[in-house]
């Protein structure tokens, strides 16, 4: 049994941990226009292309990366992005504009309890958060289909540049849980 003393980071008189992620560091800043996407698994800094995203299959997790500074924005879990590749013809409304060669990107963090949205329901081609069974429609802006989640996943609009997936605009909404 290990006993530790008073936590070094503990604050007693009012100054608790800061609320929200530290945004000062580039690695913690939200994705910006022009960022590329790199695979979550491994340390690769190779920008992802549409062909790297399996079609009609479980989402691929990715981090945004500032291509000039080679800074992977993995300093905050709120920067985790899920990529799904779908038939472009099935995408609805603004989702088609946000897609690049059928690849759509959304925040991977469920706004309900902060879990990672990682399950792919193959038959209806929907996204599931397996923590509390919230379901999202990736063809329609990750709209809520059912479950306890209070809102859709924020989209990260994409474009293609030199065949690479590139962030076209910042997240379309808030990411992370709904703070109380």
């Amino acid at each position, binding site marked *: 049994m290990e006993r530790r003393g008073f936590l070094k980071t*503990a604050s007693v008189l*009012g*100054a608790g941990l800061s609320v929200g992620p530290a945004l000062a560091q580039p690695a913690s800043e939200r994705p910006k226009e022009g960022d590329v996407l790199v695979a979550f698994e491994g340390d690769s800094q190779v920008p992802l292309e549409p062909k790297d995203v399996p079609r009609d299959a479980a989402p691929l997790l990715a981090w945004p990366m500032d291509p000039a500074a080679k800074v992977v924005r993995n300093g905050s*879990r709120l920067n985790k992005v899920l990529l799904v590749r779908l038939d472009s013809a099935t995408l609805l409304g603004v989702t088609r504009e946000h897609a690049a060669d059928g690849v759509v990107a959304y925040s991977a963090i469920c706004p309900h309890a902060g879990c990672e949205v990682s399950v792919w329901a193959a038959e209806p081609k929907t996204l599931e958060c397996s923590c509390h*069974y919230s379901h999202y429609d990736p063809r329609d802006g990750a709209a809520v289909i059912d479950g306890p989640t209070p809102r859709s996943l924020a989209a990260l609009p994409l474009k293609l540049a030199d065949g690479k997936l590139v962030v076209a605009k910042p997240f379309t909404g808030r990411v*992370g849980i709904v703070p109380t």
Partner: protein
Amino acid sequence: MSAKRTFLQSAAALVAAGLSTASAQMPQVVAPVSATPVPGPVPEVLQKYTSVTAERLKKPEDGNWFHFRRTYDGWGFSPLTEINAKNVGRLQLVWSMATGQVEGHQAPPIVNNGVMFVATPGNQLLAIEAKTGNLLWRYKRRLPEDVVHLHPTNRGVALYGDKVYFASADCVLVALDARTGKEVWTADVDDYRKAHYMSLAPLIVDGKVILGASGGELGVRGFVAAVDAETGKQLWKTYTIPAPGEPGSETWPAGGDHYKRGGGAVWITGTYDPETNLTFWGTGNAAPWFGDQRPGDNLYTSSVVALDVNSGAIKGHFQYHPNDSWDWDEVSPPIVVDYKRDGKTVKGLINVSRSGYIWDLERTTGRINFVAGRPYVRQNVFKSLDPKTGRPVVDEARKPGTGKGAEFCPSLWGGKDWPPAAFSPRTRLIYIPANDNLCHELVGETPKYVVGERYMGVAKNVMKIVEGADHIGELQAWNVDTGKKAWTTNMPSFMWGPVLATGGDVLFAGGTNDRLFRAFDARSGKILWEYPTISGVAAVPVSFQVDGKQYVAVQSGWGVDPAKMQARMNLLFPGKYPEVPQGGAIYVFAVK
């Protein structure tokens, strides 16, 4: 009273703004220009707030409900007798109040001489005049947006001195002024970014605030910690997973770092024995979920640990089952109760475990001894128990593993999950909110550890119901002296209702998906009264007294695990288990 305050505040604003003479002939009350609330005087009931001493915590007055289960022994028993089996049918609503929150409401209303403190989801705490339902103050602590809050609930607060202690989900202990609801201090208990989150009611013993953190599904290393109630300084922190070289580390694979994320989370308030100064805490399952990935018994997961309150040292333990592979957290602490066995009195501990067994144990100044164990629901995993040690002989065919599927009963939610059982010293019965006839199939896979993400390793997860089963939920009563079941009352759905026992020989519990809150005859299990609430009741009911009148209070508010079980049942029986509406409210009842 609140209307009176508003009038006075407005009148003061009128004078302050110098407007009184402008309309001298027609006195007017003018609202302040700013919408910023003006603090009013401290309400009378809070001016008279009675300090909570260590002695009062040891022996709460009959009319108060201080701890998660009212008393240190964990009985969930109110000695009040006004409400009894004869008059409970006339129980009526006295007041109710919306909490303004969704998700699972689970906390008991904590009551000190007419002041009620109710923790709710949304990291919120309400102070209420218990007799009238008047809101006294509201505290909310904003959560970081990157927190993982897998079980978005809070199971209550603790009282000491003139403060209220609130375990915030972001792993920060907050001490509030009971009279004002203002923060006195905050203390970081651990780092929420490492996926620790708190959901339990703290336990306070002799000025020490004792608590632990959830996060077993997220690869945490469980702990129980003590914080000085006056200063917020952390006094000790005892991990439920030993580091290499520490006692118990030999039950983990050698040379690895399994211990760093071995689970054993702590998310239900412990019990306490003043005679030995030991506090008893239940621990969660080991992580990842499948035992073949961490060969060994994996102490102190799925166990009870006896901690010395002064030092935090583990003085004894009992592991209900080694090398868990069924997600059977054993976080409910044992109740502290002496019982008869073979003509002698055993200084005992009794736990109704998630594995589907009732464990009769013996407490000492340290070591915890096995006395007896028996299943209370269908259980097909333990073939037998070692008669001396209580160690179960596991049917390996019923133990899932990595790439190895197995079906087992009870389900991963267990015969009883977190909702606490109750004990009545009048009937000598322990009352169990049980789920029978549910089983599970699991298949494991090797997970990759990523800080802050789930670390379970589940490839397949299917809930099943025993063919031909005519019910799932039960309220059971077992005699602690004979070890025999006294009665069972079947419930109309599964059962997630914490139980309240009372001196009037009436039990109270919700727990079903029909939104009803019920009263039962403690001696027969007969349903005596029921009340339709706005959502489902899965919170701890309490009883208290103000001005000589007995009340029963509970929160309604469906969410978290019962909602998940409802969703699973709807997959098994499409359309038969529609969504239970969410939304929280506090209900207070009395016989008028």
